[in-house]
């Protein structure tokens, strides 16, 4: 397996100095070139898992392997696209994209050449010498994706990369991300709370249970997707994911609002937006 997550457990210490289990015995295998999405209620540890794969944080127990190597620190073979683009405001678009390449001691000429190629792929050739503040939110996120892709990573880790964007921009970027994935054959690990997004993009959806974070179910998405319009198959899959998640959402709400919260079964099904909301 390309990415192997083996019995990974992680605790955090909360404000009351109590130890809270965020990830409980996670086991997951991801094949090379596949597109996996993690969905779950907010606070279920899905982003934590992504950080562990990135090497930005260490698991308390268990191991993560990428292409046979044990993960113990961050590295350019597993780059992350964060929710906010995180471009360096003091560098131009081109300099931002070549940042990682120069770290790998690639010559400036070669790095620029590669960066221009990737920037063309995300349709930003016109803005090569702009500074990040001159770009819109969607354009910034394209630069962030370009900056990640140019490294030719083993895995592209995406942490709710489109959740801060407006609907139209998100739709366009979904389509483009799928194109990029098909042409580059990069392995994508995509964390989101947006069920529709997960269904329209990923081949496999890992549904997370919360408190502690656990894999509840893994669903294969059957149809060919274009990332734009939901068809009956995606809607169907969406419902399936939602029904699995229902129990988890109820758990979160009960915990936050007390036991007097009564959850109407089936109620959520009527919403077809697929977005559970990031702030429940």
């Amino acid at each position, binding site marked *: 397996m390309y990415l192997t997550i083996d019995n990974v457990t992680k605790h955090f210490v909360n404000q009351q100095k109590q130890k809270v289990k965020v990830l409980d015995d996670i086991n997951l295998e991801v094949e090379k070139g596949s597109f996996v999405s993690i969905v779950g209620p907010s606070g279920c540890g899905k982003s934590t898992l992504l950080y562990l794969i*990135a*090497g*930005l944080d260490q698991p308390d127990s268990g191991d993560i392997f990428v292409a046979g190597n044990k993960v113990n620190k*961050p*590295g*350019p073979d*597993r*780059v*992350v696209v*964060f929710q*906010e683009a*995180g471009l*360096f*405001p*003091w560098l131009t678009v081109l300099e931002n994209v070549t*940042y*990682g390449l120069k*770290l*790998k001691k690639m010559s400036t000429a070669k790095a620029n050449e590669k960066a221009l190629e990737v920037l063309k792929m995300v349709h930003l050739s016109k803005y090569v010498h702009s*500074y*990040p*503040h*001159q770009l819109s939110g969607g354009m910034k996120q394209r630069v962030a994706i370009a900056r990640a892709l140019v*490294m030719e990573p083993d895995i592209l880790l995406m942490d709710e990369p489109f959740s801060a964007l407006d609907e139209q921009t998100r739709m366009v970027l979904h389509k483009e991300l799928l194109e990029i994935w098909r042409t580059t054959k990069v392995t994508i690990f995509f964390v989101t709370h947006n069920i529709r997004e997960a269904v329209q993009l990923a081949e496999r959806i890992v549904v997370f249970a919360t408190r502690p974070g656990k894999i509840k179910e893994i669903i294969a998405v059957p149809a060919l997707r274009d990332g734009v319009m939901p068809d009956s198959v995606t809607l169907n899959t969406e419902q399936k994911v939602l029904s699995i998640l229902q129990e988890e959402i109820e758990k979160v709400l009960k915990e936050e609002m007390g036991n007097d919260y009564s959850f109407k079964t089936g109620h959520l099904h009527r919403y077809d937006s697929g977005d559970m909301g990031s702030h429940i």
Partner: protein
Amino acid sequence: MIAAIWEVTSRLSGLPSFMFPSLTQVFETLVNGLISGQITAAIGKSMGRILLGFLIAIIVGLILGYFIWRYKLVEDTLGFVVTALQSIPSIVWFPLAIIWFGLNDFSILFIVTIGATWTMTVNATSGFKNVPPLYQRVAKTYGSSGFHFVRTVILPASVPQIISGLRIAWAFSWRALMAGELLGGGGGLGQLLEMGRSLGQMDLVISVMIIIAIIGTIVDNVVFSRIERNVQMKWGVHS
């Protein structure tokens, strides 16, 4: 308007001209001083001192700031001391400096440097501390670490804060320089002030005051403002 009032009051005040010189008289002394090289040499001397002191302060401030930011133990110990030291006006160091180094150039350089160092340290520390974690994470995922990480992320990301630190540090060391030169001698604008006083030449004193004001304004409004504006333009921050 102010010039006219000055000219008139000076002529009508009845005070002798060496105590309250007229504008024209001051202007004459100023021009003469610039031409003869007396004032120009003093400007050169003072600027040389402050630039050297300032440069040392920036380097020391950044280094101290780095250690305070990087190590908790240093923060708890040195960080606290620096905050306390920052509240001491730098001229207060002068007696000590005279005992340590003698009444010479070095003592003046010392208080100029010390006037700017603590402010630089405090600003550098808070600049480093306020680097968004997102930038740090991004850099780390691309494999940046150690000196490269500090050079390419921590330093540039704290540039806005460092610039405002420079500005305050400059104001402190400029004041310290004048006070030091006034007391310590060894040439420079402050010394020229003292000379004007002992010779009873208030026209010279006022000329020097004008020069001090002009240099202060140029540095603050032209040099620092321009740097600040450039950074803001590049970053897209609106003041």
